[in-house]
C-alpha cells in the first residue's frame, strides 16, 4: 500500500526532475502573471496593495491548474494508466501519490516564491507571512480538487481549457477565504483565525473525499 504510494511519488518526482526546467516553468508562470497585473491596471501603490491578495491567489489557481492537465494525461496516452489499473494496487493510493507529487511540484514552490509578490506589490512583511501561510493551507486543496477535474477530462480533446471550466468554480472558496484572510490581516483588529479554521476544514474534507472521487472518475474515463 504505502509502497505503491512511495513508488509512484518517487517516479513522478524523478520524471519532473529529469526536466528540471519544468518545475521552474510553473514558478515563473506565477511570477510573470503576478507582474503583468501592475502593467495592466497601473502602478498606484494603494491599489496594488489592495488587489495583491486576489491577484496572488488567482495566479496560484491558474498555475496550479495549468499543470493539472498533465497530471494523468501523460500516463494515459502512453498506456501506463491502464497498466496501473490492472495491477493489484488500490487506485486511490495511486491517486494520492499523484496529488502529492503535483502539490510538491506546483504548490510548494509558489509558497516559497510568495515574498516576490510582497516586493512587487509593496506588502508589509507580516502580510507576506500570512499569504505564505494561507497558500500552505490552500494549495493542497487546489491540487486535490484539481485532480478530480483532470481525471474527468482525461483523453478529451481540449482537456486543458475544459478542466478550468470544471475546476475554477470549485476553487472559489479557497480564493475567497485565502484572499480575504490576507486583507483581514492588514487591518488593526484583524482576526484570521476563522479563515484558517474554514480552510483547514475544507482541506480535511478534500483529503477524505477527493482520492476516492478521483479514483472513480479515473475508472469512468478509462473504460
Amino acid at each position, binding site marked *: 500500500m504505502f509502497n505503491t504510494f512511495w513508488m509512484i511519488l518517487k*517516479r513522478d518526482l524523478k*520524471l519532473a526532475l529529469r526536466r528540471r526546467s519544468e518545475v521552474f516553468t510553473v514558478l515563473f508562470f506565477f511570477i510573470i502573471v503576478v507582474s503583468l497585473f501592475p502593467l495592466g491596471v497601473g502602478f498606484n501603490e494603494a491599489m496594488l496593495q489592495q488587489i495583491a491578495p486576489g491577484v496572488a491567489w488567482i495566479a496560484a489557481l491558474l498555475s496550479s491548474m495549468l499543470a493539472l492537465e498533465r497530471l494523468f494525461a501523460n500516463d494515459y496516452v502512453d*498506456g501506463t494508466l*491502464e*497498466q*496501473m489499473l490492472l495491477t493489484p494496487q488500490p487506485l486511490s493510493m495511486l491517486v494520492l501519490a499523484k496529488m502529492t507529487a503535483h502539490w510538491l511540484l506546483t504548490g510548494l514552490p509558489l509558497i516559497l516564491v510568495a515574498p516576490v509578490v510582497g516586493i512587487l506589490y509593496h506588502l508589509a512583511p507580516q502580510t507576506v507571512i500570512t499569504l505564505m501561510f494561507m497558500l500552505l493551507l490552500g494549495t493542497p486543496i487546489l491540487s486535490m480538487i484539481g485532480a478530480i477535474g483532470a481525471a474527468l477530462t482525461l483523453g478529451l480533446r481540449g482537456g486543458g481549457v475544459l478542466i478550468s471550466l470544471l475546476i475554477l468554480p470549485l476553487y472559489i472558496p479557497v480564493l475567497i477565504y485565502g484572499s480575504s484572510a490576507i486583507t483581514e490581516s492588514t487591518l488593526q483588529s484583524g482576526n484570521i483565525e476563522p479563515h484558517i479554521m474554514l480552510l483547514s476544514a475544507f482541506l480535511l474534507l478534500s483529503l477524505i473525499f477527493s482520492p476516492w472521487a478521483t479514483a472513480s472518475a479515473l475508472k469512468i474515463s478509462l473504460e
Partner: protein
Amino acid sequence: MSLTVSNLQCTRGDRQLFSGLNLQLNPKQLLFLEGQNGSGKTTLIRTLCSLFIADKGEILWQGQPIKEHLEAYHRALFYLGHLNAIKGDLTTLENLRFNHTMSEQQSSDDELLDALERIGLFGYEDFPTRQLSQGQKRRVALARLLVNKSPLWILDEPFVALDIAAVELLQHIISQHIETGGMAILTTHQAVPLTKGKIQHLNLDDYAAESGMESYV
C-alpha cells in the same frame, strides 16, 4: 486455474461486434484470436482484462466472476496492448523496474538487467526510452515477460514492430510460458508458428452479428 467466458456480447458505439462468444482456457493452453481488421479482437481482449465492459455474458477466473475478485484476477494477469506503457524520460531499466514492481512482482536488478540483455537491449540499460526505435520500445515493454510470473498472459499484437530475431525470441518465450503451465491469449495478423502446448483458434468473424453493418474486404 482457468479462464471461462460464456455467452459474451460486446458493442462499440452502436455496432454489435460479436455475441454468444464462449471460450475456456486451461493451463498449458494458448488461444489465438483471429479476425479481420475491425472484427473486435482488441475489444474482446480489453473486455477480458476488465478494461471494457461487455453488454452481456460472464468472465470467470477460477470459477469466479472477475468483476467481484478484481484484485486476485489482476494479480494473475499480464496484459500488453497496443501501447507500450513506457515513459520516454525514464531509462530502459527504470521503466522495466517500475512496471514490474507495480504488478507486485519482485526481481533483483540483476534479473532485470539479464532480461533486458536477453531481449536484445544490452548496452541500452541507461538510455532514456524516448531515444529508442519503434521496435526497441516494444522490446522494453516485452522484457517484462521474461521476469513475469503471472499465469495468464493476454497480448494484443505483440509481434508488431519487432524484427525477425525478436519475433523468434518472443515465440520462444511464449512457448516456454505455456510449457511451464501458463496460459496465453494472443492476437496477431502475422503467421507465427507456435508449436508447444495445446493451441486453440478463435475467429471472431464467426461470431460477428448477422444484422447490422459489416466490414468488407
